């Protein structure tokens, strides 16, 4: 029996599967990173610093689908791609990459694009919500109109009678 307060130790040679997979992922990541660094040092530098807003969005967005990251990434990448193409097709040097990254206007283009992506992420859901609300409000008018007609004919007592019936989902927000 384990005494209270004593944490049982794992048997020797048995490590959690997740920590093994993480290690494996880390090793493979470092290998690929090294290879990319060896093949195209300027691209890697530009991508790492250019996609910083995406990396931040990836860290900040705790959701499973990572909508914020993808939204910021799409626009961030669009802003970065012209400079990447300059590196790839004009001056493929680390100095050129650093020059881009130290140019305020270039950085402004890259990060503004990312900011637009973030803005898109923030502004679109309320618009969609409002739109859907308007649609549902229009749909609810007919049954509510019918209810009003019934109440006018049969009186407010109807509500009490119907209240005793099980008529499906109830809007808790409305109730409160």
């Amino acid at each position, binding site marked *: 029996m384990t005494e209270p307060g004593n944490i049982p130790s794992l048997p020797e040679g048995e490590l959690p599967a997740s920590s093994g997979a993480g290690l494996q992922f880390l090793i493979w990541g470092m290998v690929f990173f090294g290879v990319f660094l060896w093949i195209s040092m300027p691209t890697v530098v530009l991508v790492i610093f250019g996609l910083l807003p995406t990396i931040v969005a990836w860290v900040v967005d705790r959701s499973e689908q990572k909508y914020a990251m993808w939204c910021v990434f799409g626009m961030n990448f669009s802003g970065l791609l012209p400079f990447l193409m300059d590196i790839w097709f004009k001056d493929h040097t680390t100095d050129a990459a650093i020059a881009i990254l130290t140019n305020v206007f270039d950085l402004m283009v890259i990060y503004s694009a990312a900011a637009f992506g973030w803005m898109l*992420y923030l502004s679109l859901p309320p618009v969609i919500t409002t739109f859907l609300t308007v649609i549902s409000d229009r749909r609810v008018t007919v049954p509510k109109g019918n209810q009003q007609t019934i109440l006018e004919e049969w009186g407010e007592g109807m509500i009490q009678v119907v209240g005793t019936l099980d008529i499906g989902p109830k809007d808790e927000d409305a109730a409160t």
Partner: protein
Amino acid sequence: MYALVCTPGLPTRIYVMLSVRGEELEGLVPLAEWDTVDGPLLGQQTMVLIYERPKGGRIMDAIESGAHNLNEYEFPRRIMDPLVRAVKSMSSVDRTHRAIRPSNVFFMDDAMQMVVLGDCATSPPGFDQPMMFEPIDRSMTSPGGRGVGTLADDIYALGATLAVLMLGYNPVGRISDEDLLTLKMEQGSYAAICGNARLPIALLEPLRGMLTDTIVARWGLEELTGWLEGQKQPSLKQIPVVRADFPYLFEGNSFYSPRTLSRYLSRHRKTAMQVITYDNLIDWLRKGVEDANRADGIIATVKTAAMHKDEPQGTDEFVIAKACMVLDSQAPIRYKSFTFMPDGFAAALAVEFLHRGEAKIPLEILKIGLPQIWYSLQRSVFDSASLQQEEYSTLTGYLSLDDPGFGFERCLYESNPTLPCQSEIITKDYVYQVGDLLPAIDAASNRSDPKTKPMDGHIAAFIAARFEEDIHPHLKALAAPVEETATIGMLSLLAFLQWKLRITALYGLSSWVGGLLGPAINTYHSRTTRQDIEKEIPSLVRKGSLPELFDLIDNAENRKSDAEGFEEAAREYAEAEYEVREIEDTGSERQSKAEKKGKHTATVISVVMSMIVASILLII
């Protein structure tokens, strides 16, 4: 002819009127007609009896004025015989007169040859009788509670009347009623009334026979007729008055008989308990009166009261009433200030209510079952005892319910079958028959507040007591705690009455009831139906038809279709509600769904835009 106008505050004896009207009964002033008429002086309808006028006037007036003198030889034939015939006439129609006294004896003709007895129907039995003309037991009650009595009571009154008529004066006129009663109790009625009077010897025998206090020994019609025909009558059994060897002393009085002590205790209730709970009384009853039964009865009364300490049967008033019955079982029931003979409860109750406007004490008596105790203490069984007990049980049953049509009012009308309805709405109309009720309410509609109902406890009880049809369902609806149901109950009862009694149009009442139907109409769920009914009411009011009004308000088909329609509408409403809820869903869920959709859309737009940008850049 002459008319007697009844006091509206007194119940009349309509059954007696029905029995004697138009009949030529020997020895009685013929009653030509009776009815209710408008009494301007009284400001209300009242009962009036029309009699043939006795032309010779009152016999006492003639004697006192000296216009009429009779010797002892003529007296039996000219005075006694017609009066005995009068009593016989009443007996032949199964009624008692109960108003035989000198002032109610008349000469029917100018020649003063025909002696008759006057009215006896304008007041409760024995109500106007001086104590002298009532037997000991009945003279102890209040005037309203003297009871219908029997032939024996009429013969007793006849005996006392004959004594006065023979003498031409009242031999005990100078003695107070109370002293006379004490004398009667201690010496017997004959000795008390005739003891010191110079009556002809020939008349002593019938007077003794008529005034004996023992009912079984008292002369009947047979003996009187036989005596008048000259036949010798069997000698009267002398039953001595119960008298103790030594007196019971209390508050400076000496009581020689339980009867006088009982009378004193019933009239001195504040100190009565001192006597009842004191052992001296038991000793006196055992040793002085030599009646162990009475002593045991007193002990049992006190012990039973101790067991019911917190109940009405444990109160001093109850103990006093019961102890007085034990001491004098023939005496009337005496509870608090209310005294009555058991066969006089109905009239006593009516008089009490008509005079005081309430009848708390009589109802208390019913609740605590004093009449039943009185019957259980009787040493001899009389004919109508079981019937009277049944009536008391029925009244107690009515009293136990408070609903309209029951309670005190029902007791009042059940026990007094000819008492007019005492509802404030129609009290001035002297309605004593159920057939006159609706027309009276109809007439009262003009002077009544239209917001009040044309129905109260008195009217409901009056209908329940007088209407022969079964009205229990109507009364049940009338008693409903819900106003709407009670209103429909009222309308149904009135409509049933109009329909069954074939009463013609009641415009005022229809209008009155029509104005009160708001709550009843509102029992319909459908607004359209309600509007239709409201539109229809005025036309039915103009017809004066309560049954049609009721049919409109409580039509079974309308009710059914309204209920079905309501059910259907409720279902439709519920379905619409379900649809609404489904559309609206829950607020937070809809929000999160829309937010998710928005984020998804933003992502797609962003990715698509990046791909477009990449494509354009690659193409350029």
